[in-house]
């Protein structure tokens, strides 16, 4: 069903159909009812995991074999017993057993030393650069948002978990929908028809008033699609990221027509007492992503899903006096999934040849994005990142 016919479907079915969908459905019914236009099997899906605060790459993918690593970080370097060796003198933080299993299955790619030329040490500037994919010019649209701009208008096309819009998901003309984590409460009866009236376009609207109005329409459209799925499964996961990925897994399994999902986790700004906190955080990322992919394995979507994990920067090589690290530059990016060609990409930045005390940049994150756009979303990456013509080949056809 195309975009226009779906809108008609909503228009004619109205609130009573919303209510009807919530009763006694099997998973198969849900899959059918969940979407007026289910995503065809075999359509690639991208799940973007944003880690806020600047994850310490050196305590995530650890250059444990280099003596400079432990000598630079008294009190916060991981011992040989606290790492899981991979190859090339690099190891994972021992909390990341899930990622190790993905690595062993050749389903985890690690892009080393990823950032952009002249990395910025500000959380906000650097995160804006990663989310807009624009290091040289300050722009307001996110890279997924610009991809959305080239897609037919459909509030299901890209979805972020939470209530506040992530800049990544805002395009020039389109924005992704945000999905509340606590489940959906959908109005019925006259309240439904009257609030849907508020979603009608008005020529007198400012850009923002039109956005406010559109968000109401998006809510009803998204609700019609996802409510049965969310209702049928209560969230049962150990942490914020796992909860978000749980909902995503259920919705993907129900064939909702969503190509890009965005989930987030904060708390990585470890200026003080970082050793235990950071290990726990990367451990929870590893667990959540691995469990998510394991869930996908039980569906027909296993080969469709690719997960991308990044943070706005790594941290300084040298520890500070507070058993933490200050803002740094490059760090590892993870890409996981069945179609991912596992292994290292790029070079681990040297610990002896630092650039003003920071790691050199050995990979450009835009090469990763180009691969996601081209090989997962099937879009010409130069349309989204003008002038960027290179990419990594880390997705197998």
């Amino acid at each position: 069903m195309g975009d226009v016919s779906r809108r008609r479907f909503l228009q004619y079915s109205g609130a009573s159909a919303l209510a009807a969908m919530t009763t006694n459905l099997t998973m198969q019914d849900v899959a059918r009812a969940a979407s007026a236009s289910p995503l065809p099997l075999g359509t690639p899906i991208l799940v973007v995991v944003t880690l806020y605060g600047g994850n310490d790459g050196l305590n995530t993918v650890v250059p444990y074999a280099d003596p400079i690593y432990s000598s630079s970080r008294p009190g916060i370097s991981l011992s040989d017993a606290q790492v899981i060796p991979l190859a090339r003198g690099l190891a994972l933080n021992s909390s990341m057993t899930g990622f190790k299993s993905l690595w062993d299955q050749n389903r985890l790619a690690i892009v080393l030393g990823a950032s952009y030329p002249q990395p910025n040490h500000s959380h906000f500037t650097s995160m804006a650069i990663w989310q807009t994919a624009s290091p040289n010019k300050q722009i307001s649209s996110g890279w997924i948002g610009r991809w959305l701009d080239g897609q037919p208008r459909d509030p299901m096309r890209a979805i972020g978990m939470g209530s506040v819009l992530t800049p990544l998901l805002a395009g020039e003309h389109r924005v992704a929908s945000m999905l509340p984590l606590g489940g959906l409460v959908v109005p019925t009866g006259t309240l439904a028809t009257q609030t849907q009236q508020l979603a009608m376009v008005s020529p007198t609207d400012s850009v923002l008033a039109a956005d406010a109005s559109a968000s109401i329409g998006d809510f009803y459209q998204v609700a019609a699609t996802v409510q049965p799925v969310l209702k049928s499964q209560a969230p049962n996961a150990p942490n914020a990221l796992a909860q978000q990925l749980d909902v995503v897994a259920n919705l993907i399994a129900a064939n909702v027509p969503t190509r890009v999902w965005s989930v987030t986790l904060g708390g990585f700004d470890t200026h003080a007492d970082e050793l235990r906190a950071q290990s726990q955080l990367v451990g929870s990322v590893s667990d959540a992503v691995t469990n998510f992919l394991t869930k996908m394995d039980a569906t027909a979507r296993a080969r469709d899903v690719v997960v991308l994990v990044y943070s706005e920067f790594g941290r300084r090589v040298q520890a500070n006096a507070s058993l933490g690290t200050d803002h740094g530059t490059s760090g590892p990016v993870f890409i996981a999934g069945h179609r991912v060609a596992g292994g290292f990409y790029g070079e681990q930045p040297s610990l002896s040849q630092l650039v003003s005390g920071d790691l050199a940049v050995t990979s450009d994150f835009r090469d990763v994005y180009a691969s996601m756009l081209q090989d997962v979303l099937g879009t010409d990456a130069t349309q989204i990142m003008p002038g960027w013509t290179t990419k990594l080949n880390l997705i197998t056809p």
Partner: protein
Amino acid sequence: MRAVHDRLVISRLVHRFSFGPKPGQYEYLVREGVTTARNRLLRTPAHDAGLASVVDPGLVDLGPFPPSKSTARAIFQQALSQQFSAMTLWWLDRMVLADYPLIERMTWFWHGHWATSISKVVYPLPMKVQNETMRLYGLGSFAGLARAMVVDGALIYWLDGQLNVAQAPNENLGREFMELFTLGVGNYSEDDVKAVAAAFTGYRVTTSNGLVTFQPSVHDYSPLAILGATAPFVAPSLSDYVVSLDANAAFVAQRLWFRFVSTTTSVPTTLVKGFANRDVRSLVEAIARHPAMKDPRHAQAKSPVEWFVSACRALQITPSNLPSTVTVANYLSLMGQVPFAPPSVGGWPYDEAWLTAASFQYRLAFATYLVKNGDLSPVVNASNDVNRSLANWLGVAKWSPRTTQAFSEAQGDPARLALLALCAPEYVVNA
């Protein structure tokens, strides 16, 4: 035509320099005209009966954490969360009840500017001390505010300043001081960050009350080269110096412009020039008088707290008197904005970020709760021109035909009309 412009300008003044009208206020201000309305809204008289009615939560210093797993610890945790709830409701009550809310509006602005979160500070008392500092200096000299903030216990602790010692500096506070609080990105180098971190060494915080002490033995007394000056600096002298730079006037003026007028345009240079003396009140008044206030392009979305407070003012609700204050905290949290808990030192998001499908769901549910507990007499007693009555009640310049159509479907149902009006795009977004 003047009347149409007046409605727009006064709607902006009353929603951006105040927290929305109390019942009858907008109609009255429109009748008086823009100049009188502006003068009224910019006043901050020493005595404000609304503010005077809000009782200070009287937070006491809870002292150090008792040992974990002890009964004392459990009681202590309870006291912490009671204090947090009392402090949050105290501030929300102030915003709602103020007769002259500009000073609360400024405190709210500065809270987003020097964004500090209870999530790390943990103790409410230092957050309250910081809040009072921002209120005290909120319309005064920015130099005075900055000088007070660099020795503010909550801010220092939030940005690891208490760990920042000459022997091994922690850059967190120094970097954010220049990037987010005084100069903006691009107006300093990485070397400046290191030098400012050195100037900020030696300040220690008592976490339970925010008391800051200076410890000379861990302060870096060496001459520091910072943005063109070389001298030994301590935090207040460093702050004075940085604030004296031209880039500071442009940066702070832009931040105010961003939150009061437009997130998409630059502050006019005349306003920056006028801010040479760093007097915040004159700058705020100049912004309120600026012709841009009637430029139709400058719509702004209300943040969740701004929306909630303005709804309470319209519905004559005192937040702390609501039957379930936990419900208030939950909805604000779901909508993504809890006072004293900004998501990061960068402060709150703006505009489109608040206008998502998810936020509509929570806004509608929250509005339903507020309407149930509010005074609907302005809607019950609406004139025959219901659209006009609702617009005047909420300080909306004009409803769109889409929204008046929704109102007509809810005719004769005051609660429903109020609910639709509070969730209408023209109310959620200040035109």
